[in-house]
C-alpha cells in the first residue's frame, strides 16, 4: 500500500500535462480576497498546473484570462447572475470550460492548505475507479459526519471544497438546479451512490473556512436556515417520492408551527390539501406512530437499496463521527 501511495505521488508530481481546473464563484466583496489569498494558496496546494475559472456574479465583466504564475492561469467568465444559485453557477462554469477532466470546486471564503489538492487527487486514485467526489476537510469547523477510516467512504460531501470526476459530472448533468443553495451537494452525492459511483472524504486535504459553525446568531435567520427547510422537502421528494414528502412533513411539523410548514411546502412547490399526502389529519396519525412503526413506514434503505443514502432526521443524512 505504501509503495502504491509513493508511486501515485510521484506520478502526480510528474504529470503536468493536464492542468487541474478550479471553479470559484465569487462576488465583489470577496474578489480581492480570492486574488490575494485563495489563488496563492492554490499554488502551494499542488505541484500540478492549475486553471482557475472565476465567475463573479455581482457584475458583468468581459471574458478575460491572464497568468497568475507560471503554473496557474486565471479565466474570468462573464455572467450577471444574482438570481442563479450555487449549482447553476457551477454548471455554467463546467459547460464553459468544456472538459471532463477531474476538477475542483471551492468556496471563495476559503484558503487551501499545503498539498491539499494533491491529497485529493491521491485519494481519488487510491479509491479505485468510479470515484465521483472527494471532499476535503474544513478547518476549524470540520463537518462531524461519518466516514470509513479504511475506505474513506462517506454518505455525502459538502460543497465547500471538492474534487469532482468530470465524466460523472457530465453524465448526471451537474448539480440539480432546483436547489438555489444548500442540499445540492447532498443531492449530487446521493445521485453518485445511486449510479454506482463513490463519495470519499480525505482528511489530509484541508482548507481554512471561517464559517459561523454551530455558533450562528439566533436572532438572525440565515439563508442556509431558510433554504435548508425548503430544500429538505425538495430533496426527500426527489429521492423518495410520496414517502419522502410524508416524512418531511412529519419531521417539520414536529419542529415548526403548521402555518410555517404549510408555507414551506408551498415554497417547495407542493400544496397542502386533502388530496395531497399532507394534511393535518395525516400529520396527526403520523404523530401517533411509535418509533418502530415510523421506521417501518419510512424505510429509506428499502426504498433505495443504497446504504449510504440515509435520512436520520431534519437535515441529518449521516451518523456523527464523534459526540460533543
Amino acid at each position, binding site marked *: 500500500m505504501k509503495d502504491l501511495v509513493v508511486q501515485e505521488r510521484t506520478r502526480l508530481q510528474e504529470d503536468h500535462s493536464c492542468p487541474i481546473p478550479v471553479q470559484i464563484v465569487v462576488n465583489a466583496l470577496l474578489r480581492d*480576497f480570492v486574488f490575494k489569498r485563495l489563488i496563492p494558496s492554490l499554488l502551494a496546494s499542488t505541484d500540478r498546473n492549475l486553471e482557475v475559472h472565476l465567475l463573479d456574479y455581482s457584475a458583468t465583466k468581459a471574458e478575460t484570462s491572464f497568468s497568475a504564475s507560471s503554473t496557474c492561469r486565471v479565466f474570468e467568465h462573464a455572467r450577471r447572475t444574482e438570481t442563479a444559485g450555487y449549482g447553476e453557477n457551477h454548471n455554467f462554469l463546467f459547460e464553459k470550460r468544456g472538459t471532463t477532466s477531474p476538477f475542483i470546486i471551492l468556496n471563495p471564503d476559503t484558503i487551501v492548505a499545503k498539498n491539499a489538492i494533491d491529497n485529493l487527487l491521491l485519494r481519488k486514485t487510491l479509491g479505485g475507479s468510479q470515484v465521483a467526489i472527494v471532499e476535503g476537510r474544513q478547518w476549524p469547523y*470540520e463537518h462531524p459526519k461519518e466516514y470509513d477510516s479504511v475506505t474513506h467512504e462517506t454518505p455525502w460531501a459538502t460543497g465547500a471544497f471538492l474534487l469532482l470526476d468530470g465524466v460523472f459530472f457530465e453524465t448526471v448533468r451537474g448539480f440539480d438546479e432546483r436547489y438555489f443553495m444548500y442540499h445540492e451537494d447532498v443531492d449530487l452525492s446521493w445521485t453518485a451512490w445511486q449510479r454506482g459511483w463513490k463519495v470519499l472524504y480525505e482528511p489530509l486535504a484541508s482548507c481554512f473556512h*471561517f464559517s459561523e459553525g454551530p*455558533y450562528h446568531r*439566533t436572532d*438572525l*435567520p440565515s439563508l442556509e436556515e431558510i433554504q435548508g427547510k425548503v430544500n429538505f422537502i425538495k430533496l426527500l421528494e426527489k429521492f423518495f417520492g410520496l414517502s419522502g414528502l410524508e416524512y418531511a412533513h412529519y419531521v417539520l411539523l414536529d419542529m415548526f408551527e403548521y402555518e410555517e410548514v404549510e408555507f414551506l411546502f408551498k415554497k417547495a412547490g407542493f400544496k397542502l390539501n386533502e388530496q395531497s399526502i399532507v394534511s393535518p389529519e395525516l400529520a396527526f396519525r403520523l404523530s401517533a406512530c411509535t418509533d418502530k412503526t415510523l421506521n417501518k413506514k419510512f424505510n429509506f434503505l428499502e426504498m433505495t437499496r443504497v446504504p449510504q443514502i440515509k435520512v436520520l432526521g431534519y437535515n441529518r443524512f449521516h451518523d456523527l*463521527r464523534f459526540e*460533543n
Partner: protein
Amino acid sequence: MSRHKSIAGNINVISGARSLFAVISDLVSDGDDVEIFCHDDVFLPSDFLESVSTWVVEAERSWPSWGIAGNAGVPVFPMGLGAHEVIRFLADPHGGPTGCQETVPCQSIDGNLVVLNCKALRSKGFSLPNFSGFHLYDLVASLETLRCGLAVLASPALFCYHDSKGSQIGFEKAWRSSGFQEYLRDQLLNSEVMTVNGPVKIDRRGVYNDSMEAFDLPVTALLNAGKGRPQPTLEIVTRTTFQRLGLLERNCLSVDIANEVARVVVNHTIVTGYRAAPEEFCGRKVVVFETEQLDDRYELVLQTARRSRADFLWFVDDDDWVFPNRFEMVLSALAVSTEDALVCGGAAQFDENLIGHGDELEFGESSPIRMFESTDLLKSFSGHNYLPFSACLFPTKVLRDLPEDLVSRVTYYEDFATTLFVASSTRCWTRLLPWALTGISVRSDGTQSVSSDSRDEWNRSMAEFRPLFLEARSIGQIADVVSASTFRSPKERLLRDDFVINHLVSQRDEAIEKLEELAGHWTWRVTRPFRIFRGVRRLLRQKAGF
C-alpha cells in the same frame, strides 16, 4: 407646566394627538435644529435645559452621527459586568437607573424623553410611517433613525423621573399587530429584537428578506454609532516560545485573513522570551523581552503593555487564532468604547487532534466543544475563570498598572488575574460582544498547560492573588456582590446548600445533646413528681371544660 415653572416658557404642550408617530414627524419636519419630546408624566431636574444643551454640544463633538437620544435604551451590545441588555438613566415606578455613567450607543430607546437632532434627521430624509396610537413610536423612530445612517444614543444627561402608568399589555398587543409585524418584516433582517419593554418577535414565516433596504438592527446600530468617531488603535499580540511553528503560522494566517476581510491593517506583534528567536516571522516583527523568570508568560503581558503605543491590546496565544468573520465589528466596537473600557467577546473552544509536529503541521480532526460567552464575565468573580484571555481586548493604559508583585509571582492563571484586575480597575462599563472573537485549541498531545494532570501550579498561582485584591480598586465590592448573588454554577449552589444543611443538622444535634444533658441532671429529675402532678391536673381541667 406647573411642575416645571422655571422652564415653562420653553415647553410647548401638545394635546389631543391621536398618534405620537405624527407628533414626532411634525417635530422633525417643522421644528428647530434640536427638539425635545417628553411625556407629560416626567419630572425633569431643575437644570435640565442646561444639562441637555451641554450634552448636545458634547454629542456633536463625540458622536457626530447622532440622530436621536433618550434616557433608556437597548445598547448595541450587552454592557457592564451584569450584562445589561437595557440601560436606564431614569427612575420610575419599576425601578432606578442601572448605574452606567456614560453615553451609550443603542439599538432603540424608550420614548418617555427623546432629544431629536432634527437638522441631521431632516438632511437624511427621516420620516415615520403613518401609524396611529401611542405605542412603539420610539422603536420605530429608532429604526428610521438608523435607516438614515444616524445613531441612536442613551445618555445620563437626560436623567429624569418618569411617573409611568403605561401598560405592558398595551405594548404586547401593539407589537403583535399584523400591520406592525409587516413593517418589521420589511425593515429588518432579524427574527427578534430587544426593546426597553421586552423582546419583540418578528414572524418571518420562513421568508428570508433579501431586500437591499432591510438591515440587521444591532449591527447597523453599532456601525452608525461609530461614524465620525476616532478609531482607537489595536495591537494583536501573540506570545510564543517558538516550539510550535506550524500553529504559530496558522495564528498569523488568521490575522492576515482578518485584516483582508475587514480591509484594515491591525498591527500584529509576536512577543517572546526565547533568546534565539528570529527577528521576523511570517512578516511580523518578533519582540524578544529579557526576562529572568522561568515561566515568563505574565512578564510578557506587562512588558508588552509598557512597550505598546496602541490603545488596546489583544493577546492571542500561538496555538489559537482570531475569527475573521466579525473582525470589522470588533473594530467598530472599539470605536464606540472609551479608551479605558474592557471589551470582551466570546471564544470557541475546539478539541484538536493534530498530525505532525513543529514546522510542518498537518491539520487533524477539529471539533467545537463549547462556546465561552462574554456575558459570563461576572461569574469569574466567584473564583473560577469563565473567560479565556484571548476573548478580551484590554485597555493598554490600565494594563500598565498591573501590580508587579502579581506579575512576578503568578504564572498559570495570569489571564484570570489580568481580566479580574482590569474589569475592577477601569471606571467604564465593560463591553460584552455577543460573538466569537477567537478559536482556542485544546489538544491531548501534552504540549499544553491547560491539559496537564497536576493542578499544583494552578493552585500555587491562585495563592499569589493577594496583590490583586489589594490593588484592584473595586474588586472587593464586586466579589461581595457576586458571592451574595446567585451567580454560581449548579455545583457551587449544591455545595453551598449542602454546607447550609450540614450546619443546621449540627445545630439540631447540638440542641438535642444539650436537652439530653439537662434532662439527665438531678435538678431536673427531682422535679419529676411535680411535673407529673401538673400534667394530670391539666388533663382533668381539659376534661372538665376549663
